[in-house]
């Protein structure tokens, strides 16, 4: 933070740039908007404590998204079996009650895709979530995860390939 703006203005600027990405990443890992919001709140509080040690907006973005990603994954691990049971309950019976064949197929597809995404190995899932929902570049994802752009490229492909295999076998409706 090298400018002469007040710390609060700078914090607001970082917040407006990073929150929309961070909350999408958190939501796609946790599948819960309230939890995602809470985790982002926690990450920004942590950032407030360290704001002066993080030199610029770009580094702040990487740092906050890394914290949000870790908090989200930890949250999922903590929920454990309960989260898995909740996801099944959320995705299956509720969607089966929809009327109309197309609606049903679309909802079935969502269910399968999100289940498949949640079942991916953590390091593949995180890359795909950041790419598809966070709309981050390979370079940015690499900076957040501390891996090379080539590694990000390979992981993104492996994640898609695994999902494709899953969807091939699931007879899923793709709009």
């Amino acid at each position, binding site marked *: 933070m090298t400018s002469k703006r007040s710390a609060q203005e700078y914090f607001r600027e970082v917040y407006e740039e990073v929150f929309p990405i961070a909350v*999408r990443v958190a939501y796609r890992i946790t599948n819960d908007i309230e939890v995602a919001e809470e985790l982002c709140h926690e990450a920004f509080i942590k950032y407030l404590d360290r704001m002066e040690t993080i030199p610029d907006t770009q580094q702040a973005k990487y740092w906050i998204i890394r914290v949000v990603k870790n908090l989200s994954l930890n949250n999922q691990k903590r929920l454990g079996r309960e989260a898995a049971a909740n996801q099944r309950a959320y995705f299956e019976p509720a969607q089966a009650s929809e009327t109309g064949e197309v609606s049903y197929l679309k909802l079935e597809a969502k269910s399968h895709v999100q289940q498949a995404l949640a079942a991916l190995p953590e390091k593949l899932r995180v890359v795909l979530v950041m790419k598809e929902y966070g709309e981050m570049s390979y370079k940015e994802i690499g900076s957040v995860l501390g891996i090379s752009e080539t590694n990000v490229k390979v992981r993104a492909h492996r994640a898609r390939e695994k999902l494709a295999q899953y969807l091939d076998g699931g007879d899923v409706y793709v709009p």
Partner: protein
Amino acid sequence: MSHEDIRLSAYLDEELPESEARELEQQLETDPELRRRYERLSGVSEALHADELPDFSASMEHTWRRLAPLSQERRPVPWWRRPIPVPLSGVAAALAVFVLFGVVLARFAGYSGQAEPGRAQTLGRSMELSVQVAESEQLLQRLSGKDAREEITIQLPESRTFEFVGQPVIVPSGR
């Protein structure tokens, strides 16, 4: 997982260089198998986005209302957690001096030869070295051969009487 498939994934993510992307587009027009693989991967992305993300604007506003007061009453970062700007040239110079000092020290401490020192201790730039009386002449010859100009202090046991004959000349150290 072929290199071609990774390229397809990178193309889908708009991460290929312009020239490579144009080349791949031409291949996609003429190679039905490549086209099929591309569509399979793009189908995964479409499926991932079939489930639209919720509108996070309310979450963003709500989280900001909770964070704004905290950003105003932010605790100052203690001095030991603040980054210290150090020029790269300064770090390089300090490292060079450190390495040079280490090399000089190693040359002094690394004396071996026929007379194995029983005990050696370095204090700053002075060195205390113990050798057997029978091997002291060898040590003196070695130091003389290296044109060593350092002052040499020999501590004689108080329990024995000595008679000085010829070289080397013993100079009082003033201790």
